[in-house]
């Protein structure tokens, strides 16, 4: 579980026209994945044009099942290479979603840092950091 | 009249903690109201802006000689609208060619923008802005 050091700002996501829908959904505690409605491929990170169809207007954001499994993870054990706003130790997981895309996120409070293992079934949940930043995290999932 | 400042800090690398070691002697000299120009110790070439090696003989030994401070206006421009929050418009910026050769960007202290002319003889006049910033400016000579 990740704890924040008060007073140090947490970097906000870079939002522009291509990924606005993605982060707006996160703010409403919904997790979406970008899909091209022509070739049906999922894409992460969101982008303005589909690499298969080379079209701009076919890119949509569809709700995700939110289910996935831990594909890889790291644990910051010292502050040397960590971000100062998070208390040490904290983990970051790379989760492979059922749609096939891989998302990086912290573990939710119900998962301890040393409980994480590759292949662990997880499910998306949300954490309201402050009034203009909500982030997704992953919690345990009974597979 | 001379350039007018707002309350915002004047843009200067020291403000952002950036050091150009090769021009540190130059700015130290300005604090003591001396115009120190870089000169290559081996071939005597005058170098401006200061640099770590002499392009003529590639020696890295240089010294700083004090310039007379005399020169002429080589070029100038006047901003009618201020492009930066620290300066009040209108203001003029001049390019002064020192007798020793180097050309320095600066401001005039006693000449109105419309009276500045290329070729006008000038002389250095130091302006202590605050403890860590003194600027070299120029006034009409003779």
């Amino acid at each position: 579980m990740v704890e924040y050091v008060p007073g140090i700002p947490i970097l906000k996501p870079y939002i522009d026209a291509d990924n606005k829908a993605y982060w707006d959904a996160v703010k409403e505690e919904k997790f979406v994945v970008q899909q091209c409605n022509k070739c049906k491929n999922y894409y992460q990170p969101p982008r303005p044009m589909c690499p298969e169809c080379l079209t701009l207007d076919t890119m949509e954001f569809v709700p995700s099942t939110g289910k996935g499994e831990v594909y890889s993870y790291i644990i910051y054990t010292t502050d040397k290479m960590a971000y100062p706003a998070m208390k040490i130790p904290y983990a970051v997981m790379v989760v492979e979603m059922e749609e096939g895309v891989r998302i990086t996120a912290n573990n939710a409070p119900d998962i301890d840092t040393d409980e994480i293992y590759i292949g662990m079934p997880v499910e998306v949940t949300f954490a309201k950091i402050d009034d203009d930043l909500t982030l997704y995290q992953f919690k345990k999932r009974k597979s | 009249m001379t350039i007018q400042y707002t309350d915002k800090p004047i843009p200067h690398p020291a403000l952002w903690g950036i050091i150009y070691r090769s021009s540190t002697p130059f700015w130290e000299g300005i604090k003591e109201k001396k115009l120190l120009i870089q000169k290559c110790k081996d071939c005597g070439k005058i170098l401006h802006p200061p640099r770590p090696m002499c392009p003529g003989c590639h020696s890295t030994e240089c010294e700083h000689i004090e310039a007379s401070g005399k020169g002429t206006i080589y070029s100038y421009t006047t901003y009618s609208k201020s492009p930066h929050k620290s300066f009040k418009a209108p203001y003029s910026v001049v390019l002064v060619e020192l007798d020793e050769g180097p050309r320095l960007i600066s401001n005039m202290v006693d000449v109105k923008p419309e009276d500045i002319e290329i070729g006008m003889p000038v002389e250095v006049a130091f302006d202590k802005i605050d403890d860590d910033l003194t600027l070299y400016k120029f006034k009409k000579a003779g």
Partner: protein
Amino acid sequence: MARKILEEYMNRKYDADIKPKPALNMIKDKTAIVGIGETKFTRGSGRDEMDMACEAIKKAADDAGIKLEDIDGLETFTLDRTAMPFIVSTLGLKNLRFASEVSFGGGAACAVTLHAAAIVATGVAKNVVCYRSLNESSGHKFGRGDGYAKYMLTAPTPHYGYTFPMGFCTPLSWAGAWGRRWMHEFNVSYEQIGWWAVVLREYANKNPLALFHNKPMTHEDYMNVQMIVEPLRLFDCCVDTDGACAHIVTTAERAKDLKQKPVYILGAGQSAPIEQEIQTVYNRPTIAGLFETWYAAHEAYRVAGVEGKDIDVAELYDPYSLGGIMSLEECDFCERGDAGNFIEGGDNIRVDGKMPTNTSGGLLSEAYIHGFNLVNEGVRQLRGTSYNQVKDPELCMVTAGPGVPSSAMVLRN
């Protein structure tokens, strides 16, 4: 499973692309590195990066036996803090014909040489110097996360928007994520990984230029040292360095009548595979392999007309030990997924082993000049002047940064 994806996916994709025929290539055997130079590597240079760059370039010119005025081309990284106009005015380059940069940090370590070779091969310029100068120990640190918090409230780029808010903000941790997946897929142990750092430290202890020249380190020291970002420890990290390196590229004919024995460029390649990011490359078919290094190495082999087994000595870009270890597989020096066993005990990568690697101490123990010190070591090996000289090597493989659009080159003496 990852082995099948990597072999099947990469080979099929790479062979399908139509690439320029090697016969058309004007670089192979027609260009050479003729001069190398570097400043002293320190932890606090107290000098401007421009000052060190000029010293390294001057030394490279002296080594090659050419005057500074003969240099009419400049190649460096986009991250370099020395702008072309000031290099021209400080070195007195009267007739500059070409000046360019390559992006992606360490991934450009061999790309600068490839671009320089393309420029001299097509006659645009005669002598192009590739240089890199940085104060990463006393000045701007590229690998640290704390710098961002001071100035920014938003992630600097869209891709970082998916990682920085989660506190996932440094190259070492990004590499830790695909490193761990590789260890998981091919069950590599922490003990096995340690041998890379140990052998490189042995090399550094015999190399007076190396920062850790007089600091021995045993495998036991490695196992007891602090874990920085699991799975990577302190001794798995490269050493932040102040210093500069440079090497000069010209045509093979001009190289003949210069001071040093020329080191010819047999083949060089650049790469930027799919779903490419700056080390946060998690959306590929698998992350248990370095696509960038594989594509760049195999493009260099294709142009050079050689294979992994023909290489006598390698200088693999290792900002963290995993980067170098996994590159052993990408360059076909060992089987896919077998790099852990290959370096166990360290003999295979020692100076008389199957594949002597990073013989100057690499980025872990010699210095971290973003790969330029590896190029200089590769040139020394082929000239026969290295402090850990491999017995008369013919071919040397140099690779650039993993996890970013990368590059690689095969050098021959």
